[in-house]
């Protein structure tokens, strides 16, 4: 069949559905059939699945003219999706086309949710299209006979590539593809990405360094612009509006009319804990919503999540409180309205959420923004401008992630074993490892075989063994099993399953939360009040409770930072044209707050850098306001604290938010000294920063993930934790051990590098410091806390830095005893 005939087949099918293909779809079909690789830039709900699935089927038809009668066995394509929740949708869409063209092609799903029986069946006979996650793909590479399995592969499609790109899952994907490029000769690689600032780079990362792939590729952009209207929910009186907080419950009543007047509303929160609380509070205050609202987040059982997704499609729900678990993919046409609670911190994320609502053609999508504290209104104002000016953030790819490489090498060693001479060129051709040196490669090989860089006598280290033919292979079944259980790059706290005593799975929660509870205690999870009956083998057995409980399940982490693009706009908004020329509704509403700020201190103008000091019961506060986003403040605060600590023995507690940071001490701090000594200088920046990182927790926290991903810390067998507890060591202890004994360890150094590159986003700190150097420093000695300082000084998540002797410090401290 000629290409024209093939394309006609697709067009006919489209016409039969009453649809018309988009130019970007036709472009993609052609490019694919010409054997090209590429990246498709298309938003959710635009028909991107058909843009790539159709040519895969057409290629099959072309290769097998008798396709209607003779089904050619074997895996043809892999569809990678970052979220399991999306797989069903893709499967249905793909199967529909395959069936209606009578191809006999099958579409299967393989994710962490897929039952063992189904997985075994797939191993015997693969479906033609496999919808899966990066982790599950890795698991396939960890199984025997994978080369044969992937031999007939014609395409890998990486959906939502922008989501994977800026994470280690992206690196995992790069490595997986590097292998497939060799073993699947017919392979075409395609990515699908929403709009980000660095689309070209996204394409390069996906395809790798090999010219054969790069040069034979295209970037296709779907030209569909959506109008988006941002509507802030501004309280009628600002007096009751809190100066801090992250829940926003005081505005709960304001969203009820919004929910009531639309068919279905998605209420997005930033964290799972926040979703739990909002869901509960809406029901408490408006019991009439019972049965009409639901909750959706990553820790809720899959059945429940699927039920919620189906209910959205069936229009049986008025509202769903959700986290990023509903950000992507799935197309929910009945959704009319989106409410975002709290600052989304990034423009891309905000737009993605806005795009979840299905709007009438020609009309703008409306997204309501509910600020959780007063200053967040500035963010709303900034967001509006960002949307208008089409500012987009970059997703920064990871470089030289040795932890992921080590995991990958062990994966290959678990399945068929590998020869370094074959694998090394593949690795060098990935974007992530384009700069890897021979020495670093040898280091990684030594790490997995010797557990160190020199052979030690009597050592019993065992992970990967080298056969006499030079094949690197895992021989121990136990190590192989432990490795398969550990594949993945998302590190979370130990998770416990929550189940009814009578059976029935409700979801997963973090060990740290349930660890604080005793049997008989009640808590609220997944919208239900539950009583803990017992903890057994990593399962929290519960029963329903009628008691009222105020303990709502909380989850760790999840704090996000403002992107640099957002913070620049935010700064401008705040300082735009002087104090009283603020003209957006958000800034007008903040009039009172600005007034208070100016009474106690100032609202800094564009050329001013504000420092405030004051004393409270807690100690001596010094606040700095660069307005550069949380991560830069994190770095800048430890840098500054470190430099001050060189001048005098002192101990600081550090706090930061997106607007500024605080150095809190039990001694007064002389800001004049900071100014006179030019402590904001960019001289010796990285040197000082490295030293300051040594004394804070930043790098240590990064190391935690690295230790888990590289397999130094085993997270345990599911449901069998107790038995293997002795194999779990704390990454904290490991970090200290490396610092003291092996500071040149590549994984230990990676922790620092990642802190620099990803936490600080490549020199953002330097740019911020350079900007401060051009500003006039205004030091205000205040009587008491100011509106700007309030959210920071009340933050409990803190770093510490000290140049004092521990002995001297504890003299001023009190022992924490039984009350």
């Amino acid at each position, binding site marked *: 069949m000629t290409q024209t005939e093939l394309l006609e087949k697709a067009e006919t099918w489209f016409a039969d559905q009453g649809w018309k293909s988009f130019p970007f779809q036709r472009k993609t079909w052609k490019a694919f059939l010409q054997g090209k690789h590429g990246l498709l830039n298309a938003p959710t709900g635009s028909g991107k699945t058909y843009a790539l699935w159709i040519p895969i089927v057409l290629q099959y038809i072309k290769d097998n003219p008798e396709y209607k009668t003779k089904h050619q066995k074997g895996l043809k394509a892999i569809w990678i999706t970052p979220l399991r929740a999306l797989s069903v949708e893709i499967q249905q869409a793909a199967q529909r086309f395959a069936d209606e063209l009578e191809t006999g092609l099958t579409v299967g799903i393989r994710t962490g949710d897929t039952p063992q029986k189904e997985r075994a069946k797939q191993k015997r006979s693969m479906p033609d299209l496999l919808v899966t996650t990066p982790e599950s793909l890795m698991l396939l590479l960890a199984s025997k006979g994978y080369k044969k399995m992937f031999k007939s592969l014609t395409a890998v499609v990486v959906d939502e590539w922008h989501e994977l790109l800026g994470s280690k899952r992206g690196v995992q994907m790069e490595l997986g593809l590097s292998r497939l490029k060799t073993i699947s000769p017919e392979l075409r690689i395609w990515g699908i990405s929403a709009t980000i600032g660095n689309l070209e780079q996204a394409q390069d990362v996906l395809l790798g360094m090999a010219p054969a792939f790069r040069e034979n590729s295209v970037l296709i952009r779907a030209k569909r612009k959506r109008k988006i209207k941002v509507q802030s929910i501004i309280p009628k009186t600002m007096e009751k509006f809190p100066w801090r907080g992250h829940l926003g419950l005081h505005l709960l009543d304001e969203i009820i009319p919004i929910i009531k007047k639309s068919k279905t509303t998605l209420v997005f929160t930033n964290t799972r804990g926040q979703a739990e609380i909002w869901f509960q509070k809406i029901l408490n205050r408006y019991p009439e919503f019972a049965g009409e609202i639901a909750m959706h987040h990553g820790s809720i059982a899959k059945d429940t999540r699927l039920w919620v997704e189906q209910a959205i499609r069936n229009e049986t729900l008025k509202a769903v409180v959700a986290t990023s678990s509903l950000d992507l993919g799935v197309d929910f046409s009945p959704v009319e309205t989106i409410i975002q609670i709290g600052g989304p911190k990034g423009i891309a994320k905000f737009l993605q959420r806005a795009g979840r609502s299905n709007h009438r053609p020609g009309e703008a999508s409306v997204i309501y923004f509910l600020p959780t504290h007063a200053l967040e209104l500035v963010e709303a104002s900034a967001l509006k401008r960002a949307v208008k000016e089409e500012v987009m953030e970059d997703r920064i790819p990871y470089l030289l992630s040795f932890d992921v490489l080590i995991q990958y090498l062990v994966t290959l060693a678990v399945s068929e074993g590998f020869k370094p001479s074959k694998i090394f060129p593949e690795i060098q051709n990935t974007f992530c490892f384009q700069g890897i040196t021979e020495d670093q490669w040898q280091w990684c090989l030594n790490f997995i075989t010797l557990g160190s860089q020199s052979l030690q006598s009597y050592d019993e280290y*065992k992970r990967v063994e080298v056969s006499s033919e030079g094949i690197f292979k895992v021989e121990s079944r136990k190590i192989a099993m432990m490795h398969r259980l550990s594949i993945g790059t998302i590190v979370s706290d130990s998770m416990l399953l929550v189940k009814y005593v009578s059976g029935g799975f409700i979801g997963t929660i973090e060990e740290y939360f349930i660890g604080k509870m005793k049997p008989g205690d009640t808590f609220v999870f997944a919208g239900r009040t539950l009583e803990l009956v017992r903890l057994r083998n990593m399962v929290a057995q519960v029963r329903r409770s009628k008691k009222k409980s105020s303990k709502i399940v909380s989850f760790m982490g999840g704090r996000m930072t403002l992107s640099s693009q957002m913070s620049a706009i935010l700064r401008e908004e705040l300082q735009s044209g002087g104090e009283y020329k603020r003209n957006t509704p958000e800034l007008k509403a903040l009039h009172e707050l600005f007034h208070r700020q100016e009474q106690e201190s100032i609202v800094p103008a564009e050329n001013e850098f504000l420092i405030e000091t004051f004393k409270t019961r807690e*100690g001596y506060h010094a606040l700095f306001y660069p307005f550069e986003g949380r991560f830069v403040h994190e770095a800048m605060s430890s840098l500054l604290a470190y430099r001050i600590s060189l001048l005098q023995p002192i101990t600081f507690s550090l706090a930061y938010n997106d607007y500024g940071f605080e150095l809190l001490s039990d001694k007064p701090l002389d800001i004049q000294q900071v100014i006179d000594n030019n402590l904001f200088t960019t001289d010796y920046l990285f040197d000082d920063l490295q030293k300051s990182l040594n004394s804070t927790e930043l790098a240590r926290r990064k190391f935690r993930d690295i230790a888990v991903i590289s397999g130094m810390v085993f997270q345990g067998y599911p449901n069998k934790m107790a038995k293997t507890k002795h*194999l779990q060591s704390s990454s904290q202890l490991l970090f200290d051990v*490396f610092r003291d004994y092996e500071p040149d360890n590549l994984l230990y150094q990676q922790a620092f590098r990642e802190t620099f590159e990803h936490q600080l986003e490549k020199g953002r700190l330097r740019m911020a410091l350079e900007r401060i150097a051009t500003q006039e420093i205004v030091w205000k000695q205040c009587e008491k806390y100011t509106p700007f300082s309030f959210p920071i000084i009340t933050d409990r998540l803190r770093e510490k830095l000290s140049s004092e002797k521990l002995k001297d410090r504890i003299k001023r401290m*009190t*022992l924490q005893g039984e009350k």
Partner: protein
Amino acid sequence: MQQISIHNNEFLFHPTGTAYWKDQDMLLVADVHLGKVSHFRKHGSAIPAHVAYQNLEKLTDVVNELSPKTVCFLGDLFHSELNQEWHDFTKWVEYTAATIILVAGNHDIIAPDKYLALGIQVVPSLDIEGFSLTHHPIEQENFFNIAGHIHPGVRLQGLARQSVKLPCFFKSEKQLILPAFGTFTGKYILKPTETDEVYALVEGEVLLLR
């Protein structure tokens, strides 16, 4: 170093977390957890191998310094089955002049006859002159209990949201719990009451808190 008196017996609390019982010329050592590093390595976790020597080096130093007649381990001497570290340990035993006693703990799964072959006595507990030495802390009528197992630590708090956690000797009316000796171990935070005494290990010193 801190010298304290318990029921007219003199004890020295050493910065290594060991206690020297003067009247018995005995060094008490809790929770060394030897073998832990090798155990991890054997299961594919690449902890630097030389960390394993740390514990024995520290042990050698403190024994040389105090040269006690007896060294009594209060349990969890060995973390796991026989491995390379056992081999190193046997060398240490040969080198050490003191008599060695092991009060067995929950992690001590190496067969007692292996210890016996090295001339080490293994006992479930040891009662000496009104003192009972055990691994798990116990209460026993008319005895002052010295134990390990807990890996005790305390938390201190100060102005400006400062807080630190320190390993410690934890003494209550009828009991003394020793800090864990092993380098590659964690600690468990206790909250002392008014009558408890806490001796914290701080940068090479032992300090009485409160």
